[in-house]
């Protein structure tokens, strides 16, 4: 039994089903019980399950993250919602020094079943402090899992898996995805972490894209098809653990790997994916690699610069074209901004 749900609805359903089945699951964070309910993903849960299971907090990101870690130590399954990933910079200590360490220092006697939901940009005009991704910082640290689902289906499966996991899991949600629709199983189900998804097959180039960039990469694939280039698009879904074998097999076959990240490049997911693919394939396949991501600057607010800051379907297609046909003159498909970007008018 499937239903056609938005990404936001799929997340709501995942949380709702987990709250119904396990009284230890609760949701908290700035604004979770407010009229907007974080893009509908927590809407009225406080009415349904009581104010102790869905509540607003003071603006105290550090202590509130620590609250969840402590409640998890006591056996509850907290879901902490951050309106923006940028705010996680205030609670890096709790995530990296505490949540990621308790299992290890206790030799497995303690566990931290804690979900940290972090919303990333773009939307528009958010600027330098409200549009960062930063998941690479968390991928760096043993003891944390990081997932960034793109489809409503995967959003639900990842969220339930994260809630049921006995370890801290960071769920990265892109603001441009909440309205995306797709078929989602009605019953609760989990997606195993560490399995990449081949969204569309192709033979000339492998495009690995993260979060909202998956949507842009699929569009780029359509552009490329028109000039006779067949692109395979892979969504890693889970960033830590990473499913390198699936990516490496595809790239070995196509001979070309483009990683399109939703983040800056240095020490980012793109560097990790490329390095591991090379480590795994060298001596057996020669793969031409490239990566795209945010421009090497803070995010500017004004539209013309903001549009240049992010990769999009046309720049991705152009990049692939240049990789595969270096002797041809440059090419970029026509077209404009993605509809979900143009349509977005908050909430911020």
């Amino acid at each position, binding site marked *: 039994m499937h239903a056609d749900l938005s990404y936001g609805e799929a997340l709501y359903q995942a949380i709702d089903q987990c709250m119904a089945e396990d009284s230890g699951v609760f949701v908290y964070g*700035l*604004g979770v019980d*407010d*009229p*907007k309910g974080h893009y509908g993903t927590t809407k009225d849960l406080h009415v349904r399950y009581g104010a102790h299971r869905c509540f*607003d*907090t*003071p*603006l*105290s*990101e*550090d*202590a509130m993250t620590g609250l969840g870690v402590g409640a998890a130590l006591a056996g509850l399954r907290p879901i902490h919602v951050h309106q923006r990933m*940028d*705010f996680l*910079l*205030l609670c890096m200590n709790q995530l990296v020094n505490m949540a990621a360490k308790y299992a290890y220092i206790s030799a497995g006697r303690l566990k931290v079943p804690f979900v940290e939901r972090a919303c990333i940009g773009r939307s*528009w*005009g*958010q*600027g*330098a*402090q*409200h549009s960062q991704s930063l998941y690479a910082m968390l991928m760096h640290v043993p003891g944390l899992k990081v997932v960034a689902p793109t489809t409503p289906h995967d959003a639900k499966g990842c969220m339930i898996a994260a809630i049921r996991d006995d370890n801290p899991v960071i769920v990265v949600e892109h603001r441009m995805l909440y309205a995306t629709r797709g078929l989602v199983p009605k019953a609760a189900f989990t997606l195993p972490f560490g399995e990449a998804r081949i969204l569309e097959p192709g033979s000339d180039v492998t495009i690995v894209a993260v979060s909202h960039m998956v949507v842009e990469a699929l569009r780029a694939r359509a552009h490329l098809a028109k000039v006779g280039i067949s692109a395979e698009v892979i969504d890693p879904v889970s960033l830590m653990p990473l499913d390198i074998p699936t990516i490496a097999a595809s790239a070995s076959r196509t001979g070309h790997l483009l990683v399109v990240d939703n983040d800056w490049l240095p020490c980012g997911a793109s560097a990790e994916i490329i390095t591991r693919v090379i480590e795994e394939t060298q001596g057996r396949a020669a793969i031409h690699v490239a990566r795209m991501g945010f*421009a*090497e*600057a*803070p995010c*500017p*607010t*004004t*539209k*013309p*610069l903001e549009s*240049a*800051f992010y990769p999009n379907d046309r720049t991705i297609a152009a990049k692939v074209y240049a990789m595969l046909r270096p002797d041809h003159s440059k090419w970029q498909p026509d077209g404009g901004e993605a509809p979900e970007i143009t349509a977005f008018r*908050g*909430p*911020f």
Partner: protein
Amino acid sequence: MVAEAPDVRSERLYYKMALIRAFEEHIAAIYPTDAVKSPIHLSIGQEAPAVAVCEVLRPEDAVFGTYRGHALYIARGGNLRAMAAELFGKANGCGRGKAGSMHLGAPEVGMMFTSAIVATGAPNAMGYAFALKYRQQPGIVVCMVGDGAVDEGVWAESLNFSALKGLPILWVVENNLYAIHAPLSNRMPRPNFCQRAEAYGIPASRIAEQDADVMVDGFAAAAEAVRDGQGPRFVEVETYRWREHVGPNEDTSLGYRTAEELAVWKDKDCLKRCAGNLDVAVLSALDTRIASEVADALAFAEASPYPDDEDLLRHVFHDGGCV
């Protein structure tokens, strides 16, 4: 284009508050056209605190505000054209269109670029005050934040350090009763802002009257003590935001606050109260001037160019030069 600022205090207060109100109302009106390139946090209804605190400042002083920064920028005397252009995302903006509404700044009048991460400009304000004392320069720093900032750990750390070192800083909380949709009661056992500041060793006072003149007097006493080398002071000032947290509209339909509550506060309008002190003729002259200033700033912004593509990668690092 911009005439001399009025030299009578009550006229000056009215002028600045009315300028903020008029400018923001225009911005709100044109917001649906997408001329403005970033989310906006309006101060309509709560113009008085920023204007009153700037009234007690001197050129050598500095102010640090927040993403809800239009009022402070204007009150401190920031260039209106540069602000309008910034909101429009233009190259003539105070941040060349890269900052937007949430990060306004006018260092030439001692207004630092603001932070959109709640409370986190506070230790920067403190560092600026530290530098003044370090160099034995005259001047004080004002750090204005919302009531939500008080929840953040860095706020407590900053109050403590400022008192420990006796820094020349005036801490101001604009208590508008809400952080987005969350009332104080969601966040504090009791709304005892002053008691908390005192616990960190900072003499504190509270201003509750919606009257810019009363506020000026309250801020003046505190600023005087700071200027006198007595160390930091803290002032809580009660106020109220009329529009939604972010965006141009009213929001009582959301249900987190009532239309009645809003009406009570609209009744206490600081601008109307201030206007009551002035001659009709003076008022109308000021209003005319304000209307033309706003129109001029918006026209300037409209006519300004967007930044070039190379601007994307400029200013990531400071290269020694200034714009």
